[in-house]
């Protein structure tokens, strides 16, 4: 029995990290993405505090990450890889092979999903990958269950030689609970070694078919041996409700609130794929009807219907009563359960919704992207120049780029457009995080195809949006990449550089680049306002700013065009002022003011 550390509040990200530590993970790799962006940071902290000696690989994309985890597993290590739902698209190619190769050390693939797109550019339902990969899928429903699920996943993975998927929706990633935490055990004393086995790891022709058959056998064994689910309320009730993931808690509470405990049998599956056929048949045997409560497209409903097809006359409902888009809320579930059971209930008298404009966030005070876009606007103006947008802080409102889709959509879509449009300029943009994710390949592609094309890299020297993970250009990185040498070696025709905090330098370099042809890159450098934090804190201590309204020509350039949140209007007056509690003292407002109305003062004390 491990010594208990005590009760602590932990959220879904921390629970995954604790689960990894308690499951004696040896190798951890990830590509950061919300809602699972902090698992690596949390596990590193546990690793440091308890001297576990876990090996970390802060991968530059999900494809590398999942392969690295598989490599460690094939040497006998317990490996875990974490990514967000759209990251699974990048990792999908290798994920298709992992069932057929099998694994040696337990391997867990954690995917953060995002019904409601609360922190993503889409709410893609990655459940449909699961039968294609044909890998087991766990979906815990609470913080304690998340912690338990990782050791369980390692055991299942080792028993059946299959990587185990674990999906966690944003709702659960951001939930917190107070749980008793034990001291993590020391790592297993295993000497990792790759045992060569070309028979097993070479897939071509007849061998690929044979390995596929073995994969099917292993998943069939797991299906018949394993059943991880919890049942609540009255097992002899004729009405069954089945749920998974975050929908479980809404369903459980709705049944209690409606007083339906005696007439309902609730089944919540933790092992969502593959479903144990005998157990599902036993559950459905005495049911007159079943309602499936789940988020997204209805994967569990589809699986149950598939399994019970031609066997049970019991009708199965789900997405005919609950939406496939957005996140499920309690009200929806309460209404669906009440209606399904023909239960009269008085919904709580709630106050009406008041429509308030959405706050999508914006660049922080002192963000290098704000001044860079000011420089771009000086060149682009109201012309129909295309601005290619990418994922990351640079795509935050006010939405200057013309699209916001997926990683490297800036450098990718722009190439096709550059080759096909007549008389329309293009400035492709993207952060350095995206550039190192797959942008390098995209840029090489432009060189390879001799595409006349201009790409701008916002290098804020950190992966800011997901919580400040190091990027290859971070100053704190002991192997900091020399971007100039890199671009030169890729064969870029013209390389320009600019300081992000000097918007007119950005403008000048952009104009120079636009006059040339070939593959052109403008690398714009400027540290994130909040990393390193000490820099920003120091500036606030030694510098203050003031707007002299008597000099101000009311052009509103600083307030509207630059749009720094630290510059505000005084209520009932045309005067503009700097909110010093918010100002990061980056000094960009001085640069853009045409009237020299903004003064910076260096403080002596």
């Amino acid at each position: 029995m491990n010594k208990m550390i005590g009760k602590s509040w932990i959220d879904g990200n921390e629970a995954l990290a604790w689960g990894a530590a308690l499951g004696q993970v040896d190798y951890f790799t990830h590509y950061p993405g919300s809602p699972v962006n902090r698992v690596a940071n949390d596990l590193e902290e546990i690793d440091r505090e308890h001297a576990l000696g876990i090996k970390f690989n802060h991968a530059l994309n999900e494809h590398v990450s999942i392969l690295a985890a598989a490599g460690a597993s094939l040497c006998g290590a317990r490996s875990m890889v974490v990514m967000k739902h759209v990251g699974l698209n990048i990792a999908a190619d290798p994920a298709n092979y992992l069932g057929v190769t099998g694994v040696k050390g337990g391997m867990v693939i954690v995917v953060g999903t995002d019904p409601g797109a609360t922190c993503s550019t889409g709410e893609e339902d990655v459940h449909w990958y699961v039968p294609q990969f044909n890998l087991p899928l766990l979906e815990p429903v609470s913080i304690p269950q998340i912690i338990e699920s990782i050791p369980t996943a390692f055991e299942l993975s080792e028993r059946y030689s299959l990587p185990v998927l674990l999906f966690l929706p944003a709702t659960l990633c951001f939930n917190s609970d107070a749980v008793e935490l034990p001291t993590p055990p020391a790592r297993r004393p295993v000497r990792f070694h790759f045992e060569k086995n070309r028979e097993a790891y070479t897939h071509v022709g007849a061998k690929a078919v044979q390995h596929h058959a073995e994969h099917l056998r292993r998943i069939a064994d797991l299906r018949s041996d394993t059943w991880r689910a919890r049942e609540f309320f009255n097992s002899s009730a004729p009405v069954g409700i089945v749920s998974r993931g975050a929908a479980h808690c809404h369903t459980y509470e709705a049944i209690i609130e409606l007083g339906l405990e005696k007439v309902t049998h609730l089944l919540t599956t933790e092992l969502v794929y593959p479903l144990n056929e005998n157990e599902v048949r036993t559950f459905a045997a005495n049911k007159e009807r079943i309602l499936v409560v789940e988020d997204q497209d209805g994967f569990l409903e589809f699986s149950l219907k598939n399994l019970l097809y031609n066997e049970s006359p019991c009708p199965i409902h789900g997405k005919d009563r609950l939406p496939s888009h957005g996140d499920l809320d309690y009200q929806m579930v309460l209404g669906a359960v009440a209606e399904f059971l023909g239960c009269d209930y008085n919904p709580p008298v709630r106050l009406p919704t008041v429509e308030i404009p959405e706050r999508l966030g914006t660049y922080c005070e002192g963000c290098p992207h704000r001044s860079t876009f000011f420089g771009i606007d000086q060149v682009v103006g109201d012309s129909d120049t295309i601005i290619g947008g990418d994922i990351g802080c640079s795509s935050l409102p006010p939405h200057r780029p013309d699209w916001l889709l997926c990683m490297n959509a800036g450098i990718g879509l722009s190439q096709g457009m550059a080759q096909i449009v007549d008389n329309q300029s293009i400035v492709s943009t993207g952060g350095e995080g995206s550039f190192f994710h797959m942008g390098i390949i995209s840029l090489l592609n432009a060189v390879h195809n001799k595409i006349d094309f201009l790409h701008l890299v916002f290098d804020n020297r950190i992966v800011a949006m997901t919580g400040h993970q190091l990027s290859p250009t971070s100053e704190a990185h002991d192997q900091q990449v020399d971007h100039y040498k890199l671009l030169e070696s890729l064969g870029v025709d013209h390389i320009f550089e600019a300081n992000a905090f000097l918007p007119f330098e950005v403008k000048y370099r952009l104009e120079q680049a636009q006059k040339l042809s070939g593959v052109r890159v403008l690398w714009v450098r400027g540290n994130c306002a909040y990393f390193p934090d000490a820099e920003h804190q120091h500036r606030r201590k030694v510098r203050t700013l003031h707007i002299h309204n008597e000099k101000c020509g009311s052009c509103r350039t600083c307030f509207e065009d630059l749009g720094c949140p630290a510059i505000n209007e005084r209520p009932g007056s045309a005067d503009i002022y700097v909110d010093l509690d918010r100002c990061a003292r980056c000094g960009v407002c001085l640069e853009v003011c045409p009237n020299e109305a903004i003064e910076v003062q260096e403080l002596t004390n």
Partner: protein
Amino acid sequence: MACRKQKILNLIIVGVGGQGVASLLKVIQKLCIAADLPAQSSLLKGGAQRLGTVTGQIRIFQNRDLDHFNFSPTVPAGRCDFLIGLEPWEALRMHDRLYADSVVLANSEQTPFESNRGRSKRSQPDPAELFLIAPEQIHIHDFTDQSRQRFGNNVMVNYLMGEFFINDLFPLFSATEFTKTFVQTVPRSALQLQPLT
């Protein structure tokens, strides 16, 4: 109220990124542990580091017979007992979570909507006047100004609102414990709160 039947106290703390919603939520979470109160909590924020909507929710289970791990921490519509709004528009965004007897504590200082930085200025109503709730249930004060007066900056709004909440509206925890826990949880506040601890 069904939730009253279940004896679950529902609290929402809302504001914009950078105001300290997460810190105040953490303090209340820790106070729940110290008081041995089972609770569930969630913190929702967008992708941006700053100036997006941030919503903290906590449900405190006074009925210990309930298996609270099976309950969601999300406060259902019409069930919020206490709402702390560090920004008045964000408090109003939670209007449909309230019921007639909900208690609202809101800061009157507005954070401008960045999308409103257009050249055509629109006049906006006072958000405080839009709450459809009995006047005695709403407590709206300029906590930003109070923070400037008391601490010389606006970053202690979350502390001041938490202090008001514990002292005047929610006597489940002691004000001394609140301040002590705040200092432990938000180290940067220690210097400012030193004379109080």
